[in-house]
């Protein structure tokens, strides 16, 4: 039995109609406590007992303008869970493991993030270990030396990755030497960090005031807050955690080409100034962005992947900082089609800015925005991360709960206005990382500066 592709693609009955959507049940109301403790720490506890687990997300504003801040902060994040006055690194790991728990720390130019989870029955243990790290991390010389050595190797590996190279180039191109650009410190600067520097930074900057702790899971919110309040009672500090200084508005300009000899693919990274989530235009811009490149059925993906085959992925997405926002467009394409891909990106930007999207397209992105919010917040981990991301921008669970209504209220006209205002290709700047020897066609389309 061997059929041809044509025979396979046809049945006697012929094409069938798409079934309609059924009745959608609303998500159950979330039980939430959002409060500020005596020490200035904001705690948001959400009851979501879908599985007997609990998720924690701590976000401490952790900016610094001193050039030594970024390398010291990286070492701090690498070493904060390596021992306290009463627990060494193995004891911490063992206590957590016995309650099915884990804790991790990471830092970026804005935030020190500690996160983890455990069986709900081990919530107190998770909090105890977290509190111990926050109040009594020791940063012994041995542990700091070991973490520094590993960090330097991880930095070396990270800096060899094309997406990291492109991100660094974009940051420099957009913001020069602003602290926001110091996402991966230089290995040489990490080597200079002493354990005393790390202890001093912890003392000065790991502060509860201005920080937020999100708890999501199978723990009653009132009990969760009481548990946090008791466990973190000794975490104190008069000063407030340090917020990133405002970013200068983005200046539109030529795309800077960065040479990566031998590369078989180019990274195209574009960016433009945008607006915060609380701006009244934001819901419309969110929908315009989805239509452009915010999901698979977007103009960018359908054009440069599904039609032209220039790329495996293309996306446009917002990036938020406490007082601002930008739009980013990413794609990676084979060297020989880099210029053609850039041309199509500019075409799609101009098209969405100039020609109002159809009502039907707006309905698709609206349904997607509402539905994907529902699915992405249906797990404890997903909800915890979303709430934490909003909390650092000063928003709460109510923003999340009310957002579907905001999206429903957006008109096609508002989407067109947002697209016209924010997606004009002349508003963008960016970088292209690739093998310059293969990128000559870029000179044909202009708006590109070679090294």
């Amino acid at each position, binding site marked *: 039995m061997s059929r041809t592709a044509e025979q396979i693609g046809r049945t006697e009955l*012929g094409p069938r109609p798409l079934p309609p959507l059924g009745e959608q049940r609303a998500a159950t109301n979330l039980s939430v406590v959002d409060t500020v403790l005596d020490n200035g720490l904001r705690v948001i506890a959400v009851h979501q007992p879908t*599985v007997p687990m609990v998720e924690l997300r701590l976000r401490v504003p952790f900016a610094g303008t001193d050039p030594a801040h970024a390398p010291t902060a990286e070492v701090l994040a690498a070493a904060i869970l390596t021992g306290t006055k009463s627990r060494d690194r193995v004891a911490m790991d063992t206590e957590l493991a016995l309650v099915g728990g884990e804790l991790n720390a990471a830092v970026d130019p804005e935030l020190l993030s500690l996160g983890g989870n455990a069986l709900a029955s081990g919530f107190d243990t998770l909090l105890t270990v977290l509190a111990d790290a926050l109040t009594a991390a020791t940063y012994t010389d041995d542990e700091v030396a070991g973490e520094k050595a590993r960090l330097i190797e991880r930095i070396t590996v990270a800096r060899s990755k094309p997406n990291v190279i492109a991100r660094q180039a974009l940051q420099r191109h957009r913001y020069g030497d602003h602290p926001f650009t110091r996402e991966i410190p230089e290995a040489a600067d990490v080597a200079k960090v002493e354990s005393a520097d790390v202890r001093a930074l912890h003392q000065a900057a790991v502060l509860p005031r201005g920080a937020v702790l999100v708890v999501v899971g199978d723990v009653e919110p009132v009990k969760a807050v009481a548990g946090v309040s008791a466990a973190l009672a000794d975490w104190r500090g008069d000063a407030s955690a340090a917020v990133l200084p405002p970013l200068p508005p983005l200046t539109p300009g030529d795309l800077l080409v960065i040479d990566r000899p031998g590369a078989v693919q180019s990274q195209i990274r574009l960016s433009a100034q945008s607006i915060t989530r609380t701006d009244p235009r934001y819901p419309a811009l969110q929908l315009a962005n989805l239509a452009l490149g915010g999901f*698979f059925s977007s103009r960018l993906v359908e054009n440069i992947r599904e039609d032209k085959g220039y790329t495996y992925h293309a996306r446009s997405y917002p990036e938020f900082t406490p007082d601002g926002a930008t739009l980013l467009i990413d794609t*990676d394409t084979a060297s020989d089609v880099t210029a053609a891909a850039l041309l199509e990106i500019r075409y799609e930007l101009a098209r969405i800015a100039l020609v109002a999207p159809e009502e039907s397209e707006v309905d698709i992105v609206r349904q997607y925005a509402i539905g994907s919010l529902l699915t992405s917040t249906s797990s404890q*981990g997903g909800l915890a991360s979303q709430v934490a991301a909003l909390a650092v921008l000063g928003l709460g669970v109510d923003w999340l709960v009310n957002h579907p209504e905001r999206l429903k209220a957006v008109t096609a006209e508002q989407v067109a206005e947002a697209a016209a205002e924010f997606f004009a290709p002349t508003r963008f700047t960016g970088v292209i990382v690739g093998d310059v020897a293969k990128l000559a066609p870029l000179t044909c389309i202009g708006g590109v500066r070679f090294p």
Partner: protein
Amino acid sequence: MTVSQPHRYTLANGLRVVLAPDDTAPVVGVSVHYDVGFRSEPEGRTGFAHLFEHLMFQGSESLEKLAHFRHVQSSGGTFNGSTHPDYTDYFEVLPSAALERALFLEADRMRAPKLTEENLRNQIDVVKEEIRLNVLNRPYGGFPWILLPPVLFDTFPNAHNGYGGFEDLEQATVADCAAFFDTYYAPANAVLTVAGDFTVEAAKELIERHFGDVPARPRPQRPSFAEPPPTTEVRADHPDPLAPLPAVAIGYRIPDPIDELDAYLAYLVLAGVLTDGDGSRLQQRLVYGDQLVTEVSAGCGMFGPFEARDPDTFTITAMYSPEVALDPVLAAIDEELERLASTPPDQAELAKITARWAASLHKEHDRIVSRTLALGAFELLYGNPSLVYELPERISAITPDAVSAAAKALRPDSRAILTVTPSGGAE
């Protein structure tokens, strides 16, 4: 875990169905697992199973190109597919109102996918970009999942590159696609899984409506991919001009994950004892103690456990400084394995692994995507989706002696060692 047993039944055309209702959130997951992965692709057609997965999204009798994506996303859902050694899965997660749509979309491409030259050429280009992105243009591309199998295995199904070579991908024809579909994408060779917010009666009715008339075709005979383990230590090196640090992957053969599940689980526990958490043996010895490596990890399966039949692989990978030689790293690993082989770990050490597995399985259950896919994969591989929920107990029953025996079986004289050597020269 307090979940009800999944419902299982089979349609007249042979399609196996798993239903796992759970109303904690108003969302549903729908997946179809086909019992064919990249181990089944023919010689000269490396990467074909994955390429074909891409084509299954390119339209079917009732759905123009791009319609599948648009219908899922305009219903508020997300989708994807992935190709594994022994199966290929497709899934959607959506608000529960869109359940029937998801069933319609999956049924339509199971019944009558549109396999056209134009879409094939387009997706060959897309897959080549995917390979450039994930393998050719980045350091450690394909490490270890593409690089290690040809060192550990001799036969084409087990050893070849599942992403495929460009020359093979470019030679793929529409006729290949038709033959592959007719052979492997029969309803009797697939599992449909629905998890989340629905009632069993309503789902059964919808499934019969949409899948009931997918014509039956014979279920293909599943070949054995068995081959003997290596009789010596086999070494190979992969020069990587983009890699800044050397890396090593050590591959060992392990018991049949299906027929010898408990023996297999002992290796899963062993992987935890070796590298899970700062207190684990190899983290302590290699990373913090001797400070020979930057990172080390161990595990079953090239992409994680429970996604392949026999033969499966136990892998230890490490990245280390150029000043460190490989042999001391290997010697330290062998010493730690010997220590475990001669003295079984105590119960307290295993209790950590057991608790973390229980927690990670809860987390997997909480994400509807992973819950749906796990139920489908366990139906496909084990004929028993409930096994997902029995795993914490099965894992906690693994004895110290069993872990010790597993460590003893990871012999230096029957393994593959693949090194990645930076070859870009000084910058």
